[in-house]
């Protein structure tokens, strides 16, 4: 566990200043000489044209720092531009390589009017959970953030967009000006988008390489487990029936309004996945149906909490409960909520169409088709084999 977390901004007259820290009593690692050093490491060699935001770590005699820097733009604007964890000298900063950017991004996105200040303490309390975030949770965090969700939506429709246009669209949708760069970075890292410069275009171009959304799938091992269980026949039958019916209805909704169904689920289910307790519950239930009374032991949560989480998941049509012959409750997944990424096959034709009707620049279209070619699953397999 780190000693604490602090946010720095650059003040022209005062140099780096700590705008907020948690816990309040945190002292170590906050002296100006250290902060200057942290700034130096983060910004060394950086220019306006080639900003280098990102994660770095520094070791001192009595402590270490894990630093996430937001880039020269934020630095020059005097916005909070650096979030760092103060660590014990024995601790490994790399443990926070994914968690810290996640927290810092939320802070940077709420930099205006100091809105982030209230978020810092609760975010910090979750830090150790953040270090254990699964890939699926990281993707869920993209889907729950309205800005990044909006970006994915636009890209899933159009495939490619200019960074400047994206900024404008986001501004219109969420009502605030956002540094697109900060928001996109984690998406590039996840392999969901790629960025590049195209000759003749004034701003960077963004390409979708994998689509990202949430699906409710049928879990075959759960169905098998239910069939093979000792549950009374009428109970299993009614489970299978209701699950089947639910999926029929779900598929109909997908057909009817794909966009609305997928994105309202993305928002809602993403939230459950980011709630660490709820996610634990889902993870356990993905393995097999479970007797209610065994749950507290399995996920070390109080009975009351489990009940609360379960009733939320029940309302969301994710779990269901049935009783066996001894009146014992069993908890079973009604559907398996999954964050999925798929190769955006449909964007190939779409790009060709946009190219033909001159909606996008020809260079941009060609470049995107090349990107799509390179990120095609067959290519990926080839690369993996070569490596």
């Amino acid at each position: 566990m780190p000693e604490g977390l602090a946010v720095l901004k650059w003040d022209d007259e005062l140099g780096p200043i700590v705008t907020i820290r948690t816990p309040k009593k945190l002292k170590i690692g906050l002296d100006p000489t250290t902060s200057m050093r942290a700034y130096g490491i983060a910004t060394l060699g950086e220019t306006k044209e080639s900003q280098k935001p990102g994660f770095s770590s520094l070791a001192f005699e009595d402590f270490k720092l894990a630093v996430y820097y937001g880039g020269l733009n934020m630095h020059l604007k005097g916005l909070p531009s650096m979030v760092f964890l103060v660590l014990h000298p024995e601790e490994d900063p790399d443990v926070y390589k994914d968690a810290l950017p996640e927290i810092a991004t939320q802070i940077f996105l709420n930099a205006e009017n100091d809105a982030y200040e209230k978020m810092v303490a609760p975010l910090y309390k979750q830090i150790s959970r953040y270090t254990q975030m699964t890939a699926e949770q990281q993707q869920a965090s993209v889907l729950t953030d309205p800005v990044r969700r909006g970006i994915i939506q636009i890209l899933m429709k159009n495939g490619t967009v200019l960074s400047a246009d994206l900024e404008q669209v986001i501004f219109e949708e969420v009502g605030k000006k956002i540094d697109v760069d900060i928001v996109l970075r984690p998406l590039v890292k996840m392999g969901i988008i790629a960025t590049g410069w195209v000759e003749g275009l004034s701003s960077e171009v963004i390409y979708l390489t994998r689509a990202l959304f949430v699906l409710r799938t049928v879990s075959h091992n759960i169905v098998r487990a239910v069939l093979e269980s000792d549950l009374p026949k009428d109970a299993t039958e009614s489970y299978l029936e209701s699950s089947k019916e639910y999926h029929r209805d779900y598929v109909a909704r997908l057909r009817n309004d794909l966009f609305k169904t997928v994105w309202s689920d993305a928002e809602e289910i993403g939230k459950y996945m980011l709630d660490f307790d709820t996610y634990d519950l889902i993870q356990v239930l993905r393995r097999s149906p479970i007797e209610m009374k065994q749950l507290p032991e399995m996920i070390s949560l109080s009975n009351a909490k489990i009940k609360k989480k379960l009733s939320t998941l029940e309302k969301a049509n994710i779990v269901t409960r049935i009783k066996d012959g001894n009146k014992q409750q069993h908890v079973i997944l009604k559907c398996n909520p999954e964050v999925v990424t798929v190769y955006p096959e449909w964007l190939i034709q779409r790009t060709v169409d946009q190219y033909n009707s001159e909606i996008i620049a020809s260079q941009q279209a060609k470049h995107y088709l090349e990107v799509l070619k390179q990120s095609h699953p067959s290519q990926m397999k080839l690369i993996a084999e070569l490596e």
Partner: protein
Amino acid sequence: MIREIHIFKEGQTLFKDIIVENKDIDTDSVMTLVASSAQNLQEWKIDSTEINRYRFVYMNSHNAQFIVTMDRQSSLQKVNEAMMSLVSRFMMVFESTLESDEWKSTDFTPFGIGFRKIVGTIPVKMCLAGHGGTGKTTLLELATLPSRGPAQEYVPTFFGDKALLKADFDPYIFSIFDLGGQDRFVQEWGKIIRSGSLVFIVTDSTEANLEWTKRIAYPVLKAELPYARAIAIANKQDLPGALSPQEVAGKLGVPAYGMQANQLDFRERWLELIRALAFEELEFKIVGEIKETE
């Protein structure tokens, strides 16, 4: 750094406080000009205009014009905030006075204390610029850590360092930025020195170092802080073969002052140089006007 304040109403001066005079311009005619621009401003709107190395920030409230003169490159946002708080403070006491005819016979001098307090909330930014090993960190510590005495061992500064200096410099306090002097850090100075008012060009008074200063440091300083005031510190005067301050000044094109930064005895002199440059009571040069001579 805030230098002056003038408050006008109907062409009369209600109050003025000149901390550091603007010697190289005709202040009276500039004030007349700025005051008439200020008159056209909406209540509580702030605007500013630049002349040479000065910036005039002005505001109009209750038909009184408030004009604050600052160093051109100091942080405008902070001076704007200072303007807001000083006009609020002024109105807290004098609002009703301004609304009647009373103002014509009122003594506004008590406002001076409040004004100077606000001036003291914005540190005057000073930068120690020079090659690695010339004595910048030693100077920083000589000023800010007198009890410890300047360190004698040389630990190269990474990127930069900073410290606040509160001494007998009323109403000003200083923030000292020590710039990492290795070549790879000089290109980074721009990120650190923005808004600087004072530049101390630190040399170890050797030929080679003066060459380096002109070749490497000057371009960065001139690009970033053309309106700042500068003097050179001819450090390490105790070493045999050290060039004299006059020689250093001649080669750098900047008035130079002798120093031995590793001697605690020189603290008084060092602080006096800082004070005198801030108050413009010694010979200095504007960075953008530096001409290398020899």
